[in-house]
């Protein structure tokens, strides 16, 4: 579904990504692991066209994304839950979900307000409240719901559990597991190895702008020591 090969990208004169490769199949959950500043967020930005790639190849559902503007890439079915959540503060919870909603792929059972509220009952309780009054965890749920409402083929979560209370984290991980069970493809950027080990099918480790290790969950457990060295936990 998503295949990134030899990706290079950077900002201005500096290069942040030298050689990033990753792959994710239909209905799979894959991870992108690494310490801060290793290029995880830049990789996500490059996939979405927010930081135009300088080299390498990004293919999504069999098509190259090279040169497409961000909104065109998003329209092909990539839904991003960004780092720091970034909900629209003055819009209500309901408006945040509805404003950018779409079913461009024509899914038979698209995400609706009711289904998102079913996934996150707390959003339903706060539907009329403006998003800025939500707690951090609730804003994260809203950001996930907002991305789901575009009915993406691929959901990308960038540091989705950063700065959240352990209880809320567990809730988010449980939600991702439920989404995976429904066949949703997900790419997760995070540092929580334990939770991801159970959830993901494939892992990729970034170090200084390069993919230094890729493998299955079983392989990751076998090489746990090496990987911990890269991730620094």
């Amino acid at each position, binding site marked *: 579904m998503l295949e990134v090969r030899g990706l290079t990208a950077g900002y201005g004169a500096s290069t942040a990504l030298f050689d990033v490769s990753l792959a994710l199949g239909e209905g799979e959950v894959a991870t992108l692991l690494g310490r801060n500043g290793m290029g995880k967020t830049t990789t996500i930005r490059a996939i*979405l066209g927010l930081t135009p790639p300088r080299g390498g190849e990004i293919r999504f559902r069999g098509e190259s994304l090279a040169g497409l*503007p961000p909104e065109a890439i*998003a329209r092909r079915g990539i839904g991003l839950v*960004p780092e720091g959540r*970034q909900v*629209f503060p*003055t*819009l209500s919870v309901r408006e945040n979900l509805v404003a*950018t909603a779409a079913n461009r792929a024509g899914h038979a059972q698209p995400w609706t307000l009711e289904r998102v509220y079913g996934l996150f009952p707390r959003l339903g309780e706060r539907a009329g409240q403006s998003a800025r009054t939500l707690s951090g965890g609730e804003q994260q749920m809203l950001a996930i719901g907002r991305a789901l409402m575009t009915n993406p083929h691929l959901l990308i979560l960038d540091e989705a559990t950063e700065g959240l209370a352990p209880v809320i984290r567990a809730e988010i991980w449980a939600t991702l597991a439920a989404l995976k069970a429904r066949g949703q493809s997900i790419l997760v950027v995070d540092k929580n190895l334990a939770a991801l080990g159970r959830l993901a099918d494939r892992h990729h480790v970034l170090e200084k702008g390069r993919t230094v290790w890729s493998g299955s969950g079983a392989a990751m457990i076998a090489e746990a020591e090496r990987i911990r060295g890269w991730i620094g936990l």
Partner: protein
Amino acid sequence: MRERLVALAALLAALALPWIAEAAGSPASIGLATRMAIYALAAASLNLALGFGGMVSFGHAAFYGIGGYAVGILYAHWSWQEPLLGLIPGSVSLAATLLAAMAAGGVAAAAIGALSLRTGGVSFIMITLAFAQMVFFLFVSLKAYGGDDGLSIRRRGELPGLDLRDPAQLYWLCLGLLLAWLLLLRRVTRARFGQVLSAARQNERRVVALGISPYPYRLVAFILSGMGTALAGALMANATRFVSTDMLHWTKSGELMVMVILGGAGTLMGPVLGAVALVGLEYGLAGLTEHWQFILGPLLVLVVIFARGGLMAALRRLRLA
């Protein structure tokens, strides 16, 4: 509930104003209220772009003036009995001239918006100002329509059943159009269109990453904004029976911005409050002293510093307190 009662009371007072003015022995205040309603219409329109859309236009005087000149030019050709460009007959029909003003404002906003919206931030402010200055100098150089001296309109717009020589009827017309425009803005800003517009103001990159290009939404909002401002200009031409390049001057753009910010950008009623307050203050202070701007300036500074979010926010706080 209380908010609705206050709004209803304000509406009734606005409707009854001509009778109240007549009874209080100051019929001149009907003209003042008419100016307030017209500026409120222009400010509310600018607010769609500035407040809701985050497009800080410093060129709305162009649309205001174009609306005024549409009425003036159509009147001039009507009085000369000579079609405009040999094609468009002149007119003093109110419906025709107001619609022509809105159409002209819309076309101008489409052209200016389509080019200016490719930029953002400070560049957008400067480009809208530059376009407005071009329109200003264009009309200064159009000697056929009076150039610097402006254009007198000896006949107010005509609509069967309405006599605009009666100040009260002109006032009710302006008030009615203001209310209609506010209802339209309310619908537009609450629809999904308005949500995307607000979302793009708050976080453009996020909207793009969710698959929506903000450009068409902004352009449509900018055009609507230009049309409303042109309508206000057309009404002002009818009220003063005179149009001049004063309407196109950049200080007019600034005045409209001050009204929006003073009242509360991004709220439906804020610009109306701002227009009423600014026009009222100008009138009141000008009656006290010739140097009224010396008092108005610091007052505006105080409002901006102490009432963040403008008069609208101050009112809300009062109600909560």
